[in-house]
Structure formats: structure tokens, C-alpha cells
């Protein structure tokens, strides 16, 4: 085997590997990219929006929250003012979860029109900054402090 032949063989092998790798990456990305959408945008997708991983962002519609603490089932609607989607989540809501709160819900939108959440995040500024006066944590735990003592 001459050196020249070896060189071409190696180049061809590298080429094949690069193409195979690119194809794998493309396939992987294509099926696993998660889009950030608002309810309006998700509804606009129609049938294309069903059963794809999505991050749905919007506000918790006031009055829509139903929390069953025995079954750990949480239902609420996410709205962006125009569109509105019913969300079903398992597990306790985060402490800051409340009516009108901005949320990001990860999950899939089913054909039954219910968005099944795998991860519910309360939206707060990711960039850390000191709160203004009056933004101090809510009074909610004060009563527990008094009642439980320790």
C-alpha cells in the first residue's frame, strides 16, 4: 500500500465519519429542539402543534387555578391576552405560583386540547437584582413562624 493511497483512504474515512456525525446531529436536533411559544402561537400551529416538546410562556389566568393537594393535580389556564390553553401539571405548584403570575410550562400539547406539563417554572427575572421597597417576601410565612414557634 503506498502512502498516497493511505492518505486518500484516511481522507475518505474522515469524510464518511463527518457526514455520518452531521446526519446524527441533524436528526437529533430536529426531533429535540424545544420551541418557546405563547398560547396564541401554539394555537396558530393547529395540528402541527400537537405532541411536540414546547415551552409555553404566559400568565396564569386569574380564577382558573384548581389544585387538588391529595391527588397532587394542578390545573390552570395560561393566557397571553389573546390565546388561552388549559394546562395540567402534576405536583405542588412553586411557592410563588398565583393568579396573574408569569409562568413557563414545559410539556406537550395533546389532541384533547390539554397541555400536559412536565416542568412548571415561575417566571421571574433571571438576572439577579435587588428588589425595590415593598417587594419584600410576602407575609405568608409570618403566621407559621408564630404558630410553630421553635
Amino acid at each position, binding site marked *: 500500500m503506498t502512502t498516497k493511497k493511505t492518505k486518500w483512504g484516511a481522507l475518505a474515512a474522515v469524510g464518511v465519519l463527518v457526514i455520518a456525525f452531521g446526519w*446524527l446531529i441533524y436528526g437529533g436536533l430536529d426531533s429535540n429542539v424545544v420551541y418557546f411559544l405563547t398560547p396564541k402561537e401554539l394555537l396558530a400551529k393547529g395540528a402541527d402543534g400537537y405532541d411536540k416538546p414546547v415551552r409555553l410562556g404566559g400568565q396564569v389566568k386569574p380564577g382558573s387555578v384548581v389544585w387538588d*393537594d391529595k391527588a397532587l393535580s394542578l390545573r390552570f389556564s395560561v393566557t397571553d391576552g389573546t390565546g388561552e390553553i388549559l394546562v395540567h401539571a402534576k405536583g*405542588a405548584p412553586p*411557592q410563588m405560583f398565583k393568579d396573574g403570575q408569569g409562568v413557563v410550562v414545559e410539556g406537550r400539547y395533546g389532541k384533547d386540547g390539554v397541555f400536559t406539563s412536565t416542568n412548571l417554572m415561575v417566571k421571574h427575572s433571571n438576572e*439577579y437584582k435587588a428588589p425595590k421597597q415593598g*417587594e419584600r417576601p410576602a407575609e405568608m410565612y409570618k*403566621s*407559621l413562624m408564630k404558630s410553630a414557634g421553635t
Partner: protein
Amino acid sequence: MTRLVASNAILVAAAVSALGALLTPIAIHKGRRDWLMLSYAAVYTNFVLVTLATLALVWGLVSHDFSISYVAQVGSRATPTFYTIISLWGALEGSIVFWAWVLGMYAAAVVWFNRHREGNLVPYAAATILMVALFFHILLIGPANPFQPVVPVPFDGPGPNPLLQNHILMAVHPPLLYLGYVGFSVPFAFAVGAMLAGEVANDDWIRLTRRWTLVAWGFLSAAIIAGMWWSYEVLGWGGYWAWDPVENASFIPWLTATAYLHSVMVQERRGMLKLWNLNLMVGTFVLTILGTFLTRSGIISSVHAFTQGTIGYFFLAFIAVVLLAALILVAGNSDKLGSEGRLDAPLSRETAFLVQNLFFTVFMFTVLIGTLFPLVAEAVRGVKVSVGTPFFNRMSVPLMVALLFLMGVGPALPWKKAAGAELKGRVLPGVVVGVLLGVAALLGGARNGYAVLAYVFAGFALGVNAAEFVRGANARVKAHGELWVTALMRLVSANRRRYGGYVAHIGVVLVALGVASSATFKTEQEATLKPGETLTVAGRTVRFKNAWGREEKQRQVIGATMELMSGSRVVGIIEPRMNYYPTQQQPVPTPEVRSMLSGDLYLNLMAFKQDGSNITVKVIWEPLVPWIWFGGLVVCLGAIIGIWPSRERQASRSGSANAAAPPMTEGRA
């Protein structure tokens, strides 16, 4: 006062770095070796000045000098002193100061140890490091200046980000990461120095930086493990790795550095892969800068991204300059980088290293592409996307399983060409352990093919690597009549790098077992409990006793007292909490973890009724997770064994040729 001292120290350090770097080529071209001493002096002076600035900033934090912008940003009188000191790296500007200090320290140390070496390699390397230092000084003067005046001086500040003052690991993870990240500047500088000096043909840049590379690698490995641990202990989701961009940023250069540690041995033994190794080292350095760009520019939002500003452009410009300069240098030196040896047989250690490098490179590109894709998609198509964990898992799990297999194959194969009979003896222990673990996994209920393979190959690697110690020690016992333990100690100390490597392999196996087990056998359950009610997860029962509140100096705490039960007996108390910091509305989850050899019982308080009548708690059984942290320690131990100077070297420190002699016991003891 403190502010002026610090900001002027940085200004002078910038000037000194620039002058020292410029002086080097002038001195070399004029043949004035004596001038080079001046550029070495610039390296030491830079270190002194940056140390001064760093100490000044720490002093400003401790003395609550709110006239310094950085202190006003992260300081608070209520924060405990310990967390005040470590908030040095709690936000952007301070972390760049700390970075510059670590770089100054490495530069001073590496120049000091090599100050007597002839030739132009060390001067050019010193100049390269000074240029990198200059970049960080420019950041500190421009977009990341921590020493701006604050008028009027506030009486108190907001304190550091609650997430960063909630756990002791914040004192550990960032310094380790910087020591690792910045440490790769040293081999990079020597690689560039070798190219500038025209000395790439001999392998001096590799020999002189061998230990430094291992030091940086050891710190980076420890930092990644500590970061996983922090995420596990603080974020309350019961996991330790989410393929988050900031995690990836630390992992990507680790992959190229690990590839380099292996492929460099092929260059030392066989004179091959010279161009490749040079590229790996330049690549590792660029990836550390890219990682800093990703985590510090605010381009991705996370606990690491402190602010949005112009600093990103500085990083991009710096990366572009480094890449361009490296490309020109490598192209100009490529004629000197031909291979001396060639592959003799497909079944040899060289081949194992080649395949390992291929896999590590593919792994690196996979993680890199997955991490950068959202940025590219948003810039090009204007859509906001994220690349989910499924992508990373799907791509990386097969690679990790294959790498576990290679970790057992490599040590069993000799250089050049393997003989069948001998190979059998070295592989057999691995096969036995691998089969045992595979069967155990199947009996335990693992049904995922990759998971079972992971156990088999982890066992295989464990068996082969451990058997190397036994074989070597047995041979010494036979040859010298030593006690077995003595033989083992002498075996390792006579050949530290090789056996240090095997120790690191065993550490990786422990980490892999922890990861595979927690991914396969993790069980979790969430429940709302009234006082006295119990919850059983994976055979372990906890009972809710009561909820309580407590005022602490810098925060308010809500906790739940959970009793760990054994039958009707209480055998332990676990208290998951939520910490409320006055500066943040969202409470910081503070899970409590009860560690056992077989795994962790992980409790996180999810919600509570204000009157304490019930709480919602998540209980997770995490099998073998403590093995990950312990395995990380073993990996570091391996690095330390490899770094530790051997006796022969201490005896003849002056001659670099001696230190460079390859270990001769490699053949077969």
C-alpha cells in the same frame, strides 16, 4: 482609598503586561538576553499588582466599603463574613478580578520554575501569558470595572445572590473552576511560544507543561464534580446534571483536555500526532474562553450570567484574535509537525488512544453544537428555542458507554503490537467483573440496553485497571521479594503518571456507576402530609412531625421536621427547608440529603400550609449518588499521583532531558 489603590494597581498591571509582552520579541531580535529578565520581571510585577487589587477588593467587601461599586452591588451588612469573602466571585466584576489573579499566579509560577532555561520558548510563552493577562486587565478597566465610585455612598447593600450564599460549596466550586480553566493558559502559552520560537519540532513545550496540564485538568475535573454536587444540594430538583449551557461550558474544554492527556502520550512515545496535539491545546484554551463568554456575557440566562452588557463583544473579539493568530502560527509551523512513527498494528495502545481521541472529539462537537444551536437559531431565524436534554442524552449515552469500554481496552493493550496470549490474561479480570456487574444490573431490574452495557463496561474497565496494580505488584514481589503493600507503593511511585492514570480511570468508573444507577433506579414520590402521616419510597419510610419557622440573621427559614423510620422506631431526623432572603421573593429550596453507601435519601420541601396543618414534600431515593462524589475524589487522587514529582526528578532537577525520559517499565514488568 481602597478603591483608588485597587483601580490604579489594575491600570499599572495592564501597562506592565503590555510592556513586558512587547519587550520580548524586541529583546530576542536584538539578541539582548538581559532584557528578557525585564519581561520576566513584568510577569512577577503583574502578579504582585493583581494580588494587591484582589486583596483590596476583599478588604472592601469585609469592611463594607460601599463606595466601591462592586461592594455596593453584592455586599450587605447582614451577610455572614464567610459569604461576604466568597462573594468575591459572586458576580461578574469580582470573578474577573479573581480570574486575573489566578492567571497572574500561574504565570509567575511557570516563569519562575523555567527561568533558567535557554532558548526562546519560555520568553515567548511568558509574553503570550502576559497578552492574555492584558485582555483581562482591559476587561477590568472597561466593561467589568469593579472599582467605580459610588456617590452617595449607601449605608447598606443587597447582599449576594441568595442562590450563591445558600451553600458552602459556593466556596469550593468557583475557585476550582478558575484554577482549572485558567490553568490551560499555561500549556496554551507554551504551545504558542514553541511555534513563535520555532521549537515545535522538539517536544519541549509538552515536557515543560506536562504537570501544568495535569494540574489544570485535575482542578477542572474537581470543579465539574463540585458543580454537580452544588446543583444537587441547592437547586432541589434531585438531579446533578441537566445539560445546562453553563454545565456544558465547563465540560467541553474538559473533553478536549482529556483527549490531549491521552494523545500526548502517543506523541511522547511514538512521535506521532504532533499537529493534532498542538490543535487540541489551542482548542482547549479557546473553549475555556468561549465558556467564559457563554457564562459571563449574559447571552444565556442562568445563575452564572450576572449581567447584560458590552463584555460579550470583548470576548468575541478576543476569541477571534486567538483563533486567527493560532491558525497563522500552526500553518506556518506545519512542515515541522510531520509524524516520525506510524501505526504498526490495529491492536495496539496507539490505536486505542486514536479511537479514544476520535470519540472525545465527537463528544465535544456534539455538546458544543447542542449548546450553541439556540444562539445560532435566534440570531439567524429569530426563533427562541432550547435544545432539550433528550438530544444530549441520545447523542452522549452511546459515546459514554463506548468510552467506558475503551477505558478497559487501552490499559490492557501494549504499545506497537499486542500478543494474543498475554492480552487474554490482562483482559480476563475485566471480563469477569463486567459480566458480574451486568448480571447484577439485570437482576436489579435494569432493562435499558445502554444501561446494562454501561454496567458491563464499567465493570470491565474496573477489572482491567485494578488488575494492572495487582499484576505489577505481584511481579515486584517475585523479583525483589518485597512485601505486597511495599511492592504496590513502589510500583506506583516508580511510574506515577501511568498508575495515576489508572487510579483516575477507577474514579471515572465509580462516577459512571453512580450516574448509571441513579439514572436507572431512581424512585421519587411527592405527597401532601398531615402531621403523623408517612410516605414510603423505595422501602424507606419518613414521617412528617411538624413544620416550623425560624429567623436567622440574613434570612428567614421555613422547615419541616421529617422522621426517618425503621419499623415503628425513629432512627433519624431529616429537615428540608425553604430559605427566604429579603432580597428575593422566590424562596430558595434547601433540600436535605441523608447519604448512605447504597444511595441518598433526598427530601425537598415543596409547599406548606400557612397554619402548618400540612406540607407537600418530595422524597427521592437516589441509588449510588454518593459514589459520584467519591469517584470524583478518586479521579483527583489520580491526578495528584500523576503530578507528584518523582524522586529521580528531584535528584536532578536541572536537566530537563532527565525528566523527559519516558518511563521504562512500560514494556512488561
